[in-house]
């Protein structure tokens, strides 16, 4: 087997996931939050593919494709929301979008 072991891939995926979640937690801009979400999803994909290759099992790759499809639809909805917010001249700051406070 060529290249680094599966642990390295998983470590990279974990780092990506951590960066993504920090982005979601910390950034206020809706667009950046969406970007960070994508990052998290792709960290998951990386882990899936790494394990798939490690275990010589194609299911993981198929699963990664499904995740991409879901990610694409999620981006559609997310960007649609951003556009809708923008059209109504609302702020794109997630902290100010707190209408649902109990």
């Amino acid at each position, binding site marked *: 087997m060529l290249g680094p072991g599966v642990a390295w891939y998983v470590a990279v995926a974990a780092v990506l996931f951590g960066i993504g979640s920090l982005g*979601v*937690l910390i950034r206020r801009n809706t667009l950046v939050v969406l970007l960070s979400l994508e990052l998290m999803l792709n960290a998951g994909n990386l882990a899936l593919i790494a394990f798939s290759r490690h275990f010589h099992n194609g299911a993981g790759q198929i699963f990664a494709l499904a995740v991409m499809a879901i990610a694409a639809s999620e981006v559609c909805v997310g960007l649609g929301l951003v556009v809708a917010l923008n059209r109504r001249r609302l702020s794109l700051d997630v902290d100010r*979008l*707190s209408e*649902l*406070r*109990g």
Partner: protein
Amino acid sequence: MTGGSWLCLLAPLGGTIVITLLGTRISRVVAAWIATMSVFVGFGGAVWAFVVMQSRQPDSRSEITTAWTWLQSGSFKVGLELLVDPLSVVMMLIVSGVGGLIVLYSIGYMEGDDEERRYFAYISFFVFSMLLLVEGGNLLMLLIGWGLVGLSSYLLIGFWHDRPSAVQAAKKAFVMNAFGDATMALAFFILIAHTNSLSFATDFNAHLSSTAANFVALGLLGGAVAKSAQIPLQTWLPDAMEGPTPVSALIHAATMVTAGVYLIARTHPLFEQARTIELLAAGTGALTLLVAGLIALVQTDIKKVIAYSTMSQIGYMFLGAGVGAYSSGMFHLMTHAFFKALLFMTAGLIIHAVSDEQDIRKLRGLGKLMPFTKWCFLAGALALVGIPPFSGFFSKDPIISSAAALGTWYGWIFFVCGVAGALLTGLYTFRLWFLVFPGEPSPFVREHYHDHNGREGAWTMLVPVGILAVLATFAGWLQWTPHWDPFTKWLAPVAPTLPAAIPTNTQEYYTSAVAVIAGLTGIGIAWAVYSRRSLAIPAAPFWRKLFENKFYFDWLYDRIFYEPAVATANFLRRDFEDPVILQTGPDLGEATLETGGLVRRLQTGLLRTYVLFIAAGAAAVVLAFLIAR
């Protein structure tokens, strides 16, 4: 034969349904005639069944007719079936015949009442229930009739529902009857457990263990005692006099209260397996006939005197059926139906004629104004006391002589009770007679008496009274046990008299002599006390108080059942319902609101906190998995 029985059963039901459905579209008189005709059509059916049956051999006179299987549970089956046999035909004839006369009488009696149609629907429903009771082809059908009779008597006693006393009396009658229904149902459960059947044939031939047989007989006796107003369940009957007088005649004299006697005669094979309980029935009858006779001595309401006399006479029937002389009990049931309905109906004529006054202290000297009523009442009274040749003589004396035939110590106690009862009967009946009829009319009567177009009542009232007076006088001649006994022979295939209870002719003669002398003595005392006034009423305040308070049964039941129940109910209302049940709802609501107020603070509306929770949750799950590994 079976056609007659179905016709007899369904005609009164049809009458009820037609009157109910037509409602106010028919006039009161039409409703009344529909009810009367339906009951008389039923009587026609009974006569049909009787005529066909008479042409058959005695051993093939029983027939069960099944409409369909009505209940089925595994191998347990109950059919909607009727039984036509000599016993049920006798009851059918009495119920529909006397019932028809009483409904006819009601046309005159109820005239002008606000809700006549309802009354006539009820009364034909009552006749239907009673016919179902006596024709039921298995124990369940009998129980259904039993329950429906209780229901319709409740409706009829409480007919004047704007009188609180009538409503209370109706409730009392219903509750006490329900008690009897329950004990009967329990007896049936035991029978089902042992024989898996409620059909007469199976149950009567089953051999039960002595415990089971005793319990079954005791349950049946409970039902009979409640329905027939015997001690200790007798207190509802006098109160039930709140109903219209024809209802008293129908329910409380001719039919319903005698159902207990019919039950004992019908289920006698079960009672014979539990001879102790059967003798207990006889003892109950003996006790009741004395107690009721004593109470009747001090009553001042004309209907209540007759009501207590009914209890007393049913005591005789219980005594007869209990010692094993079923046909004597049934024969007394029949003659009693005639003369007691007659007495109630003459009382009704009086009540009708003097503006609804029932107090015999105010009613004096009515004989001059109402000669027809007077003579009819006299016929009924003599039949009641058992003076030959009136019917009571032929039916009451065999019962007493059967007790003598038993011969053991309890047989003699029953005998003495029966003779003492005859004396009391003479005394209270002729107390009523001497107070109400002879002499000059009292001022009250003069003021309030009004005739009905020159007669003593409407013809619909006078005709049944006349017919019953003839029956009360002559019906007894059907059977004089020492010499001819067609009635006993007729019932022999169904309810043969126990050999121990068959008296010899000598016993019959001396019993008759003693009983007639006792009755005449009673009449003589009544004459001396209430007519000639040469004998004073003994002061004896203790006894007077005891009788006037009806031996304190009502008082006792109030203390034992009513008051503890009310106290418990009040306690639960105050200490359970208010603090627990009523408070729980609002408490729950407030607690929910408070919790909601706490939980809503979690809902910040900030995306980042939600994410943080999700991340923290996921981390916790991962951590848990790692640790659990």
